[in-house]
C-alpha cells in the first residue's frame, strides 16, 4: 500500500510536486505554493489541494483552511479575464457599488462568479490602493480610473480584445523601458552598464564554445560583449543570468530572419528584440502568467 502511495506521488500532479520541491524549507511555504499552483492551474482544484497536502506533509484540513481563508485563492475555476472592481472607502463614496452592479448586469454574474462561457470572472476588492482615481476597476492587471456605470460596457469590450495593449501597436518599433525575464520575472535591465545612455539588457551568452556575459542595447537591440564573430544573434544562444532560462525565441525576426529574444516590457507587452536593430512589439495578454502563456504558445 505504502509503495503504491509512493508511486502516485508526483505522478498524479507533477506540477504541484515541482512547485512544492522548489519551496521546501522556506517560510510561508504553504501560501506561496498555493499561489503558484493557482497561477499554473488557474484555480485550486481538489486534486491539487490533496497533492499539496501530500507534498508538504500538512493535513488536508490545514491546506483547505488556508486556501479558503485568504481571498486571493479560488476553489472554483476562473475565467480567461479577471474583472476586479474596487470597493474601498474612497471608491465607495464615489459610487463604486453602482459600478459593481453595472458590471454584474453586463456580465450576468454576481461578484465572485464566472460567466458560463468561461470568459470573465467578476471580483470585488476591499481596496486596491489607487484611491485618488476611484472608482477603480482592474481588468487583467490594467487599471481603469474614475469608472461609472456608463463606462462599463466599453471597458468590457476592451477586455475582450486584450487590455494590455501597449502604446505601440502590433508590429511597430518599440523601446524597452523595463524588462524582466519571462521565466523567473527578475529584471534584465542593468542601469550600471548603459549603452547609448540607457540601461542595457544583461544576459548570459553562449557561442562556439565561448561562454560569458553579454549586453544588449535596449535602444536598438545590438549585442555587445560577445566575440566579434558572434555579433549576429543567430549564432548566439542567450540565457537569463538569474535562472538560466533560454531567451532565444523560435520566432524569427521579420527583417533579418534570425531568432529574436523575448522580454517582458513594463506594460506587459512582449517585446521581441533582434540584433538587426528591429524591435517589434507583440501584444501579450497580461503581465506575468498570461504573458508567460503567450510565450509558450509562440514557441
Amino acid at each position: 500500500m505504502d509503495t503504491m502511495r509512493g508511486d502516485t506521488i508526483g505522478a498524479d500532479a507533477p506540477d504541484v510536486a515541482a512547485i512544492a520541491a522548489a519551496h521546501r524549507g522556506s517560510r510561508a511555504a504553504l501560501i506561496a505554493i498555493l499561489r503558484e499552483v493557482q497561477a499554473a492551474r488557474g484555480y485550486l482544484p481538489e486534486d491539487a489541494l490533496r497533492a499539496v497536502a501530500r507534498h508538504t506533509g500538512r493535513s488536508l484540513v490545514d491546506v483547505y483552511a488556508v486556501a479558503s481563508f485568504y481571498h486571493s485563492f479560488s476553489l472554483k475555476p476562473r475565467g480567461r479575464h479577471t474583472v476586479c472592481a474596487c470597493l474601498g472607502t474612497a471608491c465607495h463614496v464615489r459610487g463604486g457599488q453602482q459600478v459593481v452592479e453595472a458590471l454584474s448586469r453586463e456580465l450576468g454574474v454576481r461578484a465572485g462568479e464566472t460567466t458560463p462561457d468561461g470568459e470573465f470572472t467578476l471580483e470585488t476588492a476591499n481596496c486596491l490602493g489607487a484611491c485618488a482615481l476611484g472608482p477603480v476597476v482592474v481588468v487583467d492587471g490594467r487599471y481603469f480610473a474614475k469608472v461609472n456605470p456608463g463606462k462599463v460596457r466599453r471597458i468590457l469590450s476592451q477586455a475582450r480584445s486584450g487590455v494590455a495593449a501597449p502604446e505601440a501597436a502590433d508590429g511597430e518599433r518599440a523601446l524597452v523601458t523595463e524588462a524582466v525575464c519571462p521565466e523567473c520575472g527578475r529584471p534584465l535591465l542593468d542601469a550600471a552598464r548603459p549603452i547609448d545612455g540607457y540601461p542595457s539588457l544583461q544576459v548570459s551568452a553562449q557561442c562556439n564554445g565561448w561562454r560569458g556575459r553579454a549586453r544588449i542595447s535596449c535602444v536598438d537591440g545590438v549585442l555587445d560583449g560577445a566575440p566579434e564573430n558572434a555579433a549576429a544573434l543567430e549564432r548566439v544562444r542567450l540565457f537569463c543570468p538569474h535562472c538560466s532560462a533560454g531567451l532565444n525565441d523560435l520566432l524569427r525576426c521579420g527583417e533579418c530572419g534570425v531568432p529574436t529574444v523575448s522580454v517582458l516590457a513594463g506594460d506587459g507587452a512582449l517585446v521581441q528584440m533582434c540584433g538587426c536593430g528591429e524591435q517589434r512589439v507583440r501584444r501579450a495578454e497580461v503581465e506575468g502568467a498570461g504573458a508567460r502563456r503567450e510565450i509558450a504558445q509562440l514557441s
Partner: protein
Amino acid sequence: MRSLSSVEDLAALRQRLAGRGERAIPTIVIPAGTCGRANGALDLVRAAKRELLARELVGRIGLRVTGCHGFCEMEPSVLVAPHGTFYPKVASEEMGRIIGAAAQDRVVTDLLFADGEGERIERQDDIPFFARQTRRLLGRNQEVDPTRIEDYLASGGYAALAAALAAGPEPVVAEVKASGLRGRGGAGFPTGAKWEMLARQPGRRGKFLVCNADEGDPGAYMDRSALEGNPHAILEGMLVGAVGTGANEGVIYVRDEYPLAIRHVSMAIRQARALGLLGERILGTDLSFDIEVVRGAGAFVCGEETALIRSIEGKVGEPRQRPPFPVQRGIDGKPTLINNVETWANIPLILEKGAAEFAAVGTQGNSGTKIFSLVGKVKRTGLVEVPMGATLGEIIHDIGGGPVGAAAVKAVQTGGPSGGCIPAARFDLPVDYDALTAAGSIMGSGGMIVMDAHTCMVDVARYFMGFLKQESCGKCFTCRKGTQRMHEILDDITRGEGSPEHLQLLEELALAVKDTTMCGLGQTAANPVLSTLRYFREEYLEHIRHGRCPAAVCKALVTYSINEACTGCGACRRACPGEAIRGASKERHVIDSARCTKCGMCVTVCQFGAVAVA
C-alpha cells in the same frame, strides 16, 4: 558593481555616484507608480525616450522614472528637475515640446498647471497642493528611480546605516527614543520603547524585524507609494533597526494587491545584497542581517500583529491572545518586532538629522510628519505629508482645495474601519494620535476620506460594517455575530425599515463587541457606528422616521426623475438597461418608476444634469 567591504567603501561609492554629474543636467522626471501607470505614465516614458533619441539629447537631458509624487489626480505628470517645472496631465504628443523647451531652458506655458480660472503656476513648489506640505518623506520619491540603488546612494542613501554602525546599538535606540517617533501603523506606540524591548530580549536563537506592509485600510495607500517609490529607505530603516536591536532576520510582509510594490522591493533587496548591504558581515562589520519578502494573500485581519505572524508562518491568519507579545514570542517563537512601513521610512531621517531636528517638526508628544491619503469628495486628491498637529481644515481646505463641486464638505473619515467620521464643525482639530482618539476616531495608518452632502453617513456605517463582517476571522463569537447583526440593522435602516429602538440596540451591540473581543479588529469594530451616531444622529432619524435619505444615496429611499433641463437627446433612453425611460426625440423624457432599478446609468450618461435623484 562590486560588493562593498567597509563603511569607507560605501562613502567612496556614494561620492563617485554623486560626482557623475547626472543630477546637474536638466532631467525629465516621470512619476510612474501604480496610479501613474494607470493614467498612462509608461506611455510618456516611451515618448520621452523616443524624443530624446530623435533630438539627439541623450546625455544632455536626463530621464528619471520614479514612484508616486503624491499628486495622483494630475497624472500622468512631468517634472523637469532641478528647476521644478511641473506639467500636469501630459499627453504623449506633448512630450516633444516639453523636452525641446527643457533643452533650451524654457517652459511650455500653456501646459503648466492652473488652478481653475487662476494663473498658471510654473514650479511644483509654488502650487498650493505642494507648497503647504512638509515633504520630508514624499519629497524623496522624486529624487530616485526606485529600481536603481545608484540613485538612492547618490542622494545620500545608506548614510544612516553608516552612522548607526559607527554609533553602536544603545545610542541608536536612544536616538530613536529621543526623536519621539510613534508607530505610524495607527496605534501610535512609541517606536524607541518597542526597540528597547526587543534589544533586551535574549537572542540566542535569533530575532526578527518585520515591516508591516499589509496596508489593509480601504482608502489608504501611503505604504504602497513608499514601497514603490523609495524601497531602499525601508531597507535602510530596517538595517538601522538591526543595529539597534540585534535582530538578524527581516521580513517585509506586503499585501498581494500591490504587485508593483512587491516587484520594486524585491529588486531593492537583490541590489542591496549584491552590494553587501544585506547578508553576512555587512560592510565588514559584525552586523549580519537579511530581508525576505513575504506576500500576503488578501486578508484584512493579517494587519494585526499576531495574525500577521501566523500568516508569515504560512498558517491561517487568526489572531491569538496576548501576552506573550510578539516581542517575546513571535515568528517561529523568536522575539519579533513589527513596525509599519512609514515608521521604518522615518528611521533613516532620524539618524541623518539627529533626534532633535527630527522632533522640531510636529508637536509635543507627536513629532515628525505624517502622510495621509486625501481622497473622496475633495478637489485635489492624492498623498499629502504634513507636520503632526496640522488641523483637519488645513489638510482638507488649504491643501486639498475644499469641496469638488457645489456640495459642501460634511465630514472626514479617518483610520479606516477602526476609525470614525469627524464632522466639518470640528475641522479645527489637530491631527495627532490623542486628539483624534478623543474625538471618537483614530489616526490609523493615514486614510482620510472626505465626504460631502452627497454622502450618506448611515450608508458609510453600513459599508464599514459590511467590510468588517466579511473580514472578521470568526474566532471570537461576539465579533463574528456582532458585526453581522449590526450590519443587518444598518441595512434595515438604509431600506427604511428601521425603528428608533434599533439605534439603542446598535449602541448596546457596539459596546458588547468592543468589550468582549480579542484583537484590534473587534475592539474597534464599533467605531464607525458609534462616531456616526454621535455626530450624525439626525441622518439616522431621518431614515427611520421619514423614510428619507437626505444624501439621496440609499437606493430603497430615492426616486429618479428627469427635470426641465432635459433636451430630449435620448442618451438616457438608449442607456437604460431596464427600458424604464420613455420620451420622443427633442422632448422631455420621463422615468417609469415601476421599471426603474435605480442603477444610476442615466445620471452618468446625461450631459445636461437633467436626471434628479431625491
